[in-house]
């Protein structure tokens, strides 16, 4: 194992770290809460070629794999970027996977974000990630994978995490694939969503921990910084290990997928998502608590992280379903369910 970033990887981190720090400031995040989307940020991200980062070069993409994508979206997560970047990346890769060259070319050309219904759909994709703003999304309906182009409602379903979720009809979707290959391609795309969402959550958790350290180092009570109290020190000291662990889980899963160990992806992706979800919720809730009354004031940033740690993974469903899924994959079906 060598954890040294290659020059290319270091460049990806540096690029996206400074990009999101500049373009996805807390002010931008706040201003985007009602829509769940920052159009200007998306435009600049497209100008950077970020949306196509992990699409094959033959399709005009960056040719990078999942690992580079994970490094990039971790930075997006750190800065709570209000753009459906993860959905866009995995849907673009899905189009490539099913050989939908024209559709992919269209997506790359138009530059609008695309998204993906994470669960199989009958007629309406409920709470589609980015559904309030994406004109295009993929969905699995029956055993058909379809691409839907329709007008985005422009208003999210009211939610507590500042997300652009909305219900969207799939009835006029254009078929991309059918049968087992459609199901398999969709399933892989959702696994990639799990993995990259985990990467986002790692960034979020790490940023929340930094916010916590800064706050408790600065905030004084009883004449001393509250970060000098051992109970608070120990409360925060639990996290650096798990944050690194979550990052490694994500990176190894992405590396394996990039190295054709694709049979591992379903388990790896669910594990990474589960671990990162619990971690992000735990870090944000503790750090918010250590803010005392200030934690619940909207003008402090930590509540932004707290709500997204809850919301991002909830778009897929109950995390416990991921436990069941990993169990099914590792131990086979159970008598019960």
């Amino acid at each position, binding site marked *: 194992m060598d954890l040294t970033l290659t020059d290319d990887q270091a460049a990806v981190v540096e690029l996206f770290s400074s990009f999101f720090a500049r373009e996805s400031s807390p002010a931008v995040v706040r201003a985007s809460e009602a829509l769940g989307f920052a159009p200007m940020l998306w435009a600049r991200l497209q100008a950077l070629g970020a949306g196509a980062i992990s699409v094959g070069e033959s399709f005009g993409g960056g040719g990078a794999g999942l690992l580079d994508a994970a490094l990039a979206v971790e930075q997006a997560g750190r800065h709570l970027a209000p753009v459906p970047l993860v959905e866009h990346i995995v849907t673009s890769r899905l189009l490539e996977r099913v050989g939908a060259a024209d559709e992919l070319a269209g997506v790359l050309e138009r530059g609008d974000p695309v998204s993906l219904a994470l669960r199989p759909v009958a007629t309406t994709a409920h*709470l589609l990630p980015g559904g309030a703003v994406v004109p295009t999304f993929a969905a699995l309906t029956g055993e058909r994978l379809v691409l839907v182009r329709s007008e985005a409602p422009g208003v999210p379903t009211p939610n507590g995490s500042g997300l652009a979720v909305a219900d969207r009809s799939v009835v006029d979707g254009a078929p991309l694939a059918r049968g087992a290959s459609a199901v398999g391609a969709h399933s892989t795309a959702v696994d990639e969503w799990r993995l990259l969402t985990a990467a986002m959550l790692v960034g979020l958790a790490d940023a929340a921990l930094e916010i916590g350290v800064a706050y408790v180092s600065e905030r004084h009570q009883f004449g001393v910084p509250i970060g000098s109290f051992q109970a608070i020190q120990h409360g925060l000291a639990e996290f650096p290990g798990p944050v690194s662990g979550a990052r490694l889980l994500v990176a190894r899963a992405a590396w394996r997928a990039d190295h054709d160990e694709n049979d591992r992806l379903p388990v790896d992706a669910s594990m990474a998502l589960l671990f990162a979800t619990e971690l992000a919720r735990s870090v944000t809730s503790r750090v918010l608590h250590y803010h005392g009354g200030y934690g*619940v004031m909207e003008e402090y940033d930590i509540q932004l992280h707290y709500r997204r740690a*809850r919301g991002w993974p*909830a778009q897929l469903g109950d995390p416990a*379903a991921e436990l069941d899924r990993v169990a099914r994959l590792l131990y086979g079906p159970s008598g019960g369910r």
Partner: protein
Amino acid sequence: MDFARDPAILAFQEEVRAVLAEHLTTDVLERVDATGTHHDWGLHRAIAARGWLAAALPRELGGQGRGADQLAALFREVELAGAPYDGMANTMMVAFVLGHLGSAFQRAEVLAPLLAGDAIPCLGYSEPDSGSDVAAAATSAVRTGDGWTITGQKMFTSLAEEARWAFLLTRTNQDVPKHRGLTFFLVPMDDPRVEVRPVRTLSGKRTNITFYDGVHVGDEWRVGEVDDGWQVMLVALAFERGVAGGVSDITALYDAALAHLRDAVDDDGRHLLDDPHVRSRLVRVAIDKEVAELLGDRAAWAAVNGIPNQEGAEAKLFGTEAFGRAAGALLDALGPAGLLVHAALDAPAGGTLEHAYRYAPILTTAGGTSEIQKNLIAERTLGLPRRR
């Protein structure tokens, strides 16, 4: 030991529920939700009309002399009903203090309208640099002429937008240990030198920052002796003894979750209540709810019987931490629909669980953080060596 419910308390609870049923309308709840102001004058006056704002005051001071168990029952019912009750709580507490310590002037000018339900107070304790360390208050009150000039800033002055007075903790002496240089005042909120700046919080609840820019008040607005504010604070705390705030919230949350989950299905038509994870979480919450209720009852019982029990610290710590666990676990059960807030048409359980997740952090902070409760328990219940 006797676990039978006291008939007097059951009857009182019935009375409270009847008042709530009449006055806590959907309109009231929607207005609270829209404004974030946890107060309704109609409900408040109905409560005042029954004399409950003086429930905690001894009879000889003009109150109803109800014990901590009855007070706890009152707060339990309003919590369970989801009623806005900050105005009631503030009023009862300040009335309790004024009943015990107020001058004739204050009883006539302040206590009377408070008890009549015509005015409410807000509480000015916390400051930017004194939260848990409340005795570090820096807002200054300086003698000028026959009165005092007050300058400073208070945080989390909830209901300042509706209150007629702030019950304000100030520093009147810099030259003594911090607990000994504090004095309380009642400050009229309509003074032009008082500024109220609204603050929205995570749960949608409104609070305020209040600024006091050289507010002049006569000495008749001072509550308690000069430099003796800590004693006044202890009287205020005595009102809360046995009434551990927030312990019924988990009951309301569990009831709402179960009512929803009994019929809820996921996208695939599966009953959520068939999911073993969902079932386990509900049972865990059900147990925590029972324990929280029992600890709350015990705190009230102990207060009624004069048994020292750390002012409900154990009940508050357990109940509010359990609420946080419950909110997270139950919200997970809803899957993506758990994202939806009250304003969404098809929000499960009307958004109650989602709201609980955003409300939980307030519970473990307001009225003394969990850390403060643990310090207290470590020191008083366990008698551990002085902290380092």
